């Protein structure tokens, strides 16, 4: 009996049931919806949103498009990240869509530094928006780790970077409604902490996910 045969024998003897997890896209969507609801709820609970923000979505199409790109980026990044936790489930093309949409979303604020979508204003400023974005992202990020630990991410750092970034982008996006609108403020106080959450997640991936491979 070869070593490989012995290994097969050892692995299959007394095999325990390992029920497959639900469809990965479904898990990603459930995580995303639950995280989005939590973020919206906590932002509303911790302070008023910018007066007139909802009206601006209707009256300023570019603002609406900006928000739609942000939302689409979050959806693609989340799906790509969770798919990456299942061997062979994610394609490079799909992951690139997520990156491209994120780049377009952030790029729109960079363009906005010169040609702002809305008249920059301090109206509705939340004094701790940087810390809020950072802190509100943590529970969705932890939930992401809990889900992904049950799967098998072959690239744990990329996977964790993806869902942590999505976790950070959720409050960052909603801050465009809840907090003051000014592209430099958005980049510095909303998007920067979201990027930091992505990096924190990537750093945590090594001890939390790599050891399981």
């Amino acid at each position, binding site marked *: 009996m*070869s*070593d*490989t*045969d012995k*290994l*097969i*024998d050892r*692995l*299959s*003897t*007394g*095999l*325990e*049931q*390992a*029920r*497959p*997890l639900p*469809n*990965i896209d479904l898990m990603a969507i459930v995580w995303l919806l639950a995280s989005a609801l939590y973020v919206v709820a906590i932002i509303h609970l911790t302070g008023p949103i910018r007066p007139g923000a909802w009206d601006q979505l209707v009256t300023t199409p570019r603002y609406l498009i900006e928000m739609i790109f942000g939302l689409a980026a979050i959806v693609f990044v989340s799906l790509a990240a969770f798919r990456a*936790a*299942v*061997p*062979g*489930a994610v*394609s*490079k093309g799909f992951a690139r869509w997520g990156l491209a949409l994120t780049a377009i979303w952030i790029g729109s604020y960079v363009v906005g530094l010169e040609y702002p979508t809305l008249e920059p204003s301090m109206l509705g400023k939340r004094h701790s928006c940087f810390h809020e974005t950072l802190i509100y992202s943590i529970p969705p990020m932890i939930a992401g780790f809990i889900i992904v630990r*049950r*799967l*098998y991410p*072959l690239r744990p750092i990329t996977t964790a970077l993806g869902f942590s970034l999505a976790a950070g982008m959720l409050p960052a996006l909603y801050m465009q409604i809840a907090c003051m609108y000014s592209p430099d403020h958005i980049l510095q106080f909303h998007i920067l902490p979201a990027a930091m959450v992505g990096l924190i997640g990537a750093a945590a991936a090594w001890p939390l996910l790599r050891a*399981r*491979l």
Partner: protein
Amino acid sequence: MYATETALTGGSTRVSSWMTEATSDNDNARWSVMMAAAQQGDEQAYRALLGELAEVIKRYMISRFGYYDQVEDCVQECLLAIHRARRSYDPKRPFKPWLFAIVRHKAVDSFRGQRRHQASSLDLASEEELAISSQEMEDQLTQGQLIAALSPDYREAITLTKIIGLSSAEAAARLDISEGTLKVRVHRAIGRLKSMLEAEHHE
């Protein structure tokens, strides 16, 4: 209970006659059914599945990297990974992309991880013996499509350090290059192998 033992027996025979990438849709569907049964705790189906996959993975490794001592170790690493990952397989998805994503990953990992596995015996070997061993090894390795596709510099670096098991310093001295250069070549060679494996997957 997995009820198609005859299919399993037939499958095992067929395994020996086909190359990995030429696995038919039938095999794909059959493995999917076997894994689904294994997820329900069916030992017999799982044993049969792992037996077939061990053969498939071995052929895959040899066709890509040629025959080297660590092929068997790599096959075992793959089987362990498949065992750990089995919960992540969704029976509604095709089996092969799931399987080969794991195999590719472990193949590259095996090249990253091999260090001085033969060093103890080689420490005692003469230069002449080592030269013969190196040449034989290289002949066997170049039967592998991907190793053969590497540039000679990268192929030598990989062969001496990751296959024969020399230390970086020993391999660098043998190739008459600095240790830093050797490490760069090994790193790039592994990167190149990884890219080639992924390119195969996307073709």
